[in-house]
């Protein structure tokens, strides 16, 4: 980044960075069969 990210942006990106893998694994485990 060019200038340090604001705290809210850092928080939002952090939430996404955790949420994406969690949902990915959950959806893969929930596959039929």
């Amino acid at each position, binding site marked *: *980044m*060019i*200038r*340090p990210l604001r705290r809210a*942006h850092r928080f*939002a*990106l952090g939430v*996404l*960075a955790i*949420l*994406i*893998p969690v*949902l*990915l*694994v*959950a*959806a*893969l485990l*929930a*596959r*039929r*069969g």
Partner: protein
Amino acid sequence: MSTAYRAVGWNRQKLRYDATIATVVFSVLAVFVLGGLVIDPNATIETLVIRACGVGALLLLHVVLAIGPLCRLDPRFLPLLYNRRHLGVTTCALALTHGVFALIQFHALGDVNPLVSVLVTSREYLSLADFPFQQLGLLALVILVLMAATSHDFWLRALSAPVWKALHMLVYPAYALVVGHVVLGALQAERGPLLPTILCAGVALVIGLHVRAAQVERRRDTNHSAGAAPAFIDVCGVDDIPECRAKTVCLAGERVAVFRYDNRISAVSNVCRHQNGPLGEGKIVGGCIVCPWHGYEYEPASGRAPAPFTERLPTFSVRLESGRVLIDPTPHPPGTYLEPARVAAADRSVVARSADARTA
């Protein structure tokens, strides 16, 4: 560097960049469609186009998202950043083709409007296996289209840099929606481990690169941010800055690029007025700082773009003491001329002597 709307100003670099993108994209699509025909001879051409464009857009989105942190970690990736917007627009075009074909194939034959059909066909929001994944794709597509439509300097000016940047940061929620669209859609019917593994690797790569780049930048920033800010802050030694290059430091929460050129030192904001490019990673050519992203130029002492251009950067007062560079973290208004600090022979010899003393 114009406020008026102009079509893309083609040059040799841009033509080569776009020719490479077109060649790679069409090759991947051709391989995917032909390979699909061999694996599944019963698949219709529409189905193969839907799959090929979907995979192409997903791959390209990963490349687009990886370029930013890669450039932060290693400047050798900077040529990829130049015209990254062309990659983004190509991603959007592939995703749009995927979406339109899917809309026609799966939603156009009923008596409900196809777009309404996407929104009402399934409402199993609490089920992972039956989640209406197409709605996630539609939302991601809306974001990608908005980004592609505003991917021009005209819109950067019209919307203002903060609004434009916020709009384009939506690429991260769009990425999350795309991953959800794929894993809750195509991968639910997929039995083999190959595709889930590739998707997991892609997600890990994108997140890993961003986290690594953030760690590196945080370490750089904290070097100069600790403690209460005195009037002038010691940021580095004179000889830490290569000739015609800069050292980037973080002062009072903002990054400052400290340039050395012709035995002079000037400090300006690190943020290019064009697209927030990192000026401290650029160099001085012909007496002007050149942004490494798109070549915008600024005079180091005044932060002003050379006439007829009008961009201006905040400047910072610089002082030299015993071979050390001291910066006042309070910025001067954009375009304020400040006499550069002169590097005397003594400044360099002091550094040399201290280095000798350390190694002795």
